[in-house]
């Protein structure tokens, strides 16, 4: 101190003041405010990362400022109060900090920290307040004084930043994990739900969990690369989106065939209800019989064909087929099929042979899918060409072969198969004639050869085809079988026919097919029998044994109608027997037997014809055969009638032919019901014919009158007004009873609507009144 009392400089005074005041923490608004703010800030949770950082920084500063590092920096709050009192020395510093300079410094520091740590987020702050503080504190320890503080600040800034950064680095990915994991967790409700919710605090845990989740869920986050497929995740969530293999059970070929057969049969069977039973039976049997090799595609084709081939088509085809057959056999297969079908439908249409062919073909067609029809077509043709040739042997054989081989949808196959079968059968057959015939057929028909080669391969197909054909044949035969010949028998006959006259062939074929079928098919009943309602009884006897018997019987029967030659019967019988014996594969034996018989019968038939016939289509032959057989049974002389429709077809045709001459007035049921209703008393049932006659006359007169009325009105069509006039003249309608009354009285509602104009909304009148 200077002695000069007077000369106390301001500086000295200030110094004294400072010295004296130093120990006292000057009460400054800022300081107080700071304290308060500190307290306020510290008491609550982290208000904000920035603020938290600032607090931390301040603490560090305080710590650094004070030589004695503050213990337990973990407690910023506690430290704050602690720091406050002890920081008397640093208080000024703090105060200074609070002062403009300090504030500036703090700002600078804090900004950096804050900026750096801003991304850190509260989580980081929260999670790492301690480590940060620790680092800070450590940093603070290292630093000394302002410079140290500054350095420490830097270090603090840096260290904590690094720490923070590290934490961030950890956190961020964690966060990423958490985010991704969170998402995943969201997706996967059951799993990892507990952890996901938490954020930064549990970031580490979450990270692990999320990682786990990621791993388990196929880690969406890039950090976790797992090999797990995303499906794992989706599995639980969206079941519908799962790629599941449809649990369709592949239907067995046989089953499919059966189904197809049924469908096919049902389709064409619309007209011939009779056949349906047989068909279904046959189909089932066929199915069983058919080898697994049956082409599925063929099956597919069949239904389509069947659908398309309606009875009308059949009829048309049959007619066509019949005509064409004579011209071309082989090529007519497709035609023959329709022809055959037609034949079935129209008894009259077909000639004796044609009819037979038609019948069997039609019948067969009905059962068989278009393929069958095709097959039948040739048979028909064949039969047609060989009216006399009853030897359906070849045909039958073919049928049989086909049966053996399986249902070959395509006619060609059938033919070929048939040929092969026949050839095969022929081979088996001892008879040379048969073989020769067959051979001839084979030779003549190139396909046969091919078929032979293919026969083996196509066995399944052909068998199917054969089956089909045989079925058709049976069906056609069925018509004939109505006569009582079991289908089987017919088949045998057909076999015997072989190359013999088409009819024979057809029949034989049909029979043979049936036999073959029976043989080949364990369960198959004579195809003809089930097909034809007439043959039903025969079908019932479908056991192979029975078949053989039936064959004999049918042969005999068929032969009679089919072959007016008496030889047929015994031959056929023999054939059937032989066939059975010779049927190595079942059908083969039959065919040769039949072939033999047929051959014998085919005295008149040309070998070529027969060969062709046999080759062409067993179905065709079958139909013929069936037809003939049926004819034999029913009307030995009237082959035509038989042709009309073997089995049910025959039955239908026969009455149809007869009935055609008769006039079908209104249906009896309708008329009688009306009459009874009006009569109100009991009515004798035999009144119907009388009423019919009356109505017939009435209608004639009615037509004339109406025509007169229309002409009078210079119209060319009879209209309702004509009728009104008529009724008026008749006395039914008078001024008091308008026509509408009568309409309402008598006609059903639907008709009433049509006649009586009804006004509807929208100024519309129903029916439309044209003025």
């Amino acid at each position: 101190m200077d002695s000069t009392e007077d000369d106390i400089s301001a500086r000295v005074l200030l110094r004294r003041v400072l010295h004296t005041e130093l120990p006292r923490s000057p009460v400054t608004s800022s300081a107080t405010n700071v304290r308060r703010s500190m307290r306020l800030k510290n008491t609550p949770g982290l208000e904000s990362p920035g603020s938290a950082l600032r607090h931390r920084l301040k603490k560090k500063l305080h710590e650094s400022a004070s030589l004695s590092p503050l213990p337990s920096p973990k407690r910023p709050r506690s430290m704050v109060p602690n720091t406050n009192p002890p920081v008397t020395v640093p208080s000024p510093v703090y105060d200074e900090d609070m002062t403009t300079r300090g504030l500036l410094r703090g700002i600078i520091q804090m900004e950096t920290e804050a900026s750096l740590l801003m991304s850190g987020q509260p989580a980081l702050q929260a999670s790492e307040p301690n480590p940060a503080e620790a680092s800070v504190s450590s940093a603070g320890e290292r630093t000394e004084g302002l410079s140290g503080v500054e350095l420490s600040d830097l270090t603090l800034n840096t260290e904590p930043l690094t720490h923070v950064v590290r934490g961030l680095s950890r956190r961020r990915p964690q966060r990423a994990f958490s985010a991704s994991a969170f998402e995943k967790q969201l997706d996967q409700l059951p799993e990892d739900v507990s952890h996901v919710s938490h954020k930064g605090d549990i970031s580490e845990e979450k990270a692990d969990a999320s990682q786990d989740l990621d791993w388990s869920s196929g880690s969406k986050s890039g950090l976790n690369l797992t090999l797990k497929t995303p499906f794992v995740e989706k599995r639980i969530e969206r079941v519908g989106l799962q790629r599941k293999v449809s649990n369709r059970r592949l239907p067995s070929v046989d089953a499919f065939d059966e189904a197809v057969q049924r469908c096919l049969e049902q389709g064409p069977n619309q007209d011939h209800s009779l056949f349906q039973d047989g068909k279904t039976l046959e189909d089932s049997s066929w199915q069983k019989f058919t080898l697994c090799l049956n082409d599925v595609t063929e099956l597919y084709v069949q239904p389509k064909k069947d659908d398309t081939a309606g009875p009308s088509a059949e009829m048309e085809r049959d007619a066509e087929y019949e005509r064409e057959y004579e011209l071309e056999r082989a090529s007519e297969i497709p035609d023959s099929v329709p022809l055959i079908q037609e034949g079935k439908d129209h008894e009259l249409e077909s000639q004796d042979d044609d009819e037979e062919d038609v019948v069997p073909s039609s019948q067969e067609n009905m059962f068989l899918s278009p393929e069958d029809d095709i097959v039948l077509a040739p048979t028909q043709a064949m039969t047609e060409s060989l009216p006399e040739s009853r030897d359906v042997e070849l045909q039958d054989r073919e049928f049989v072969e086909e049966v053996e081989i399986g249902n070959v949808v395509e006619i060609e196959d059938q033919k070929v198969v048939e040929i092969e079968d026949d050839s095969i059968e022929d081979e088996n057959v001892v008879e040379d004639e048969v073989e020769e015939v067959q051979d001839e057929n084979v030779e003549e028909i190139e396909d046969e050869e091919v078929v032979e080669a293919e026969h083996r391969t196509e066995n399944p197909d052909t068998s199917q085809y054969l089956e089909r054909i045989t079925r058709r044949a049976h069906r056609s035969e069925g018509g004939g079988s109505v006569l009582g010949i079991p289908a089987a028998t017919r088949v045998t006959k057909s076999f015997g026919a072989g190359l013999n006259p088409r009819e024979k062939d057809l029949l034989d074929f049909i029979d043979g097919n049936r036999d073959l079928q029976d043989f080949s098919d364990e369960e198959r009943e004579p195809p003809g029998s089930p097909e034809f309602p007439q043959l039903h009884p025969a079908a019932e006897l479908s056991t192979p044994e029975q078949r053989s018997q039936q064959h004999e019987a049918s042969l005999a029967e068929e032969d009679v109608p089919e072959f007016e030659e008496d030889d047929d019967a015994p031959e056929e019988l023999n054939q059937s027997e032989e066939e059975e014996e010779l049927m190595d594969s079942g059908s083969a034996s039959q065919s040769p037997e039949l072939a033999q018989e047929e051959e014998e019968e085919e005295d008149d038939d040309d070998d070529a014809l027969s060969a062709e016939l046999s080759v062409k289509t067993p179905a065709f032959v079958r139909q013929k055969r069936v037809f003939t057989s049926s004819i034999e049974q029913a009307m030995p002389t009237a082959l035509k009638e038989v042709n009309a429709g073997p089995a049910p077809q025959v039955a239908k045709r026969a009455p149809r032919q007869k009935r055609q001459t008769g006039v079908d007035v209104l249906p009896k049921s309708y008329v009688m019901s009306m009459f009874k209703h009006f009569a109100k008393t009991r009515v004798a049932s035999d009144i119907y014919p009388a009423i019919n006659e009356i109505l017939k006359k009435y209608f004639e007169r009615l037509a004339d009158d109406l025509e007169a009325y229309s002409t009078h009105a210079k119209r060319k069509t009879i209209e309702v007004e004509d009728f009104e006039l008529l009724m008026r003249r008749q006395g039914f309608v008078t001024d008091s009873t308008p026509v509408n009354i009568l309409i309402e009285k008598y006609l059903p509602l639907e008709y009433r609507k049509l006649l009586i104009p009804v006004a509807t909304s929208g100024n519309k009148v129903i029916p439309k009144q044209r003025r």
Partner: protein
Amino acid sequence: MSKKAPRAALKLHMKKNTNIRIGKNADLMAQLNLLVVLHRLAEESRVKAFEEKSATIKVHHVRAVAKKMLKSTRG
């Protein structure tokens, strides 16, 4: 009564010998006509049967009535 009327058969009858055409709903009228006629026929024959004191309508009843009917509904 509300049975399906065989429109096709009726149409066939009406067009039997001639080539004339039938209008759209004309066959319905024909149906109506047929019903009416049948009704009348039944009535007449029932009456006839009563005359003979038989509960059921026999053929001869109907026949006897038929001629008269055809004549009356001549138009």
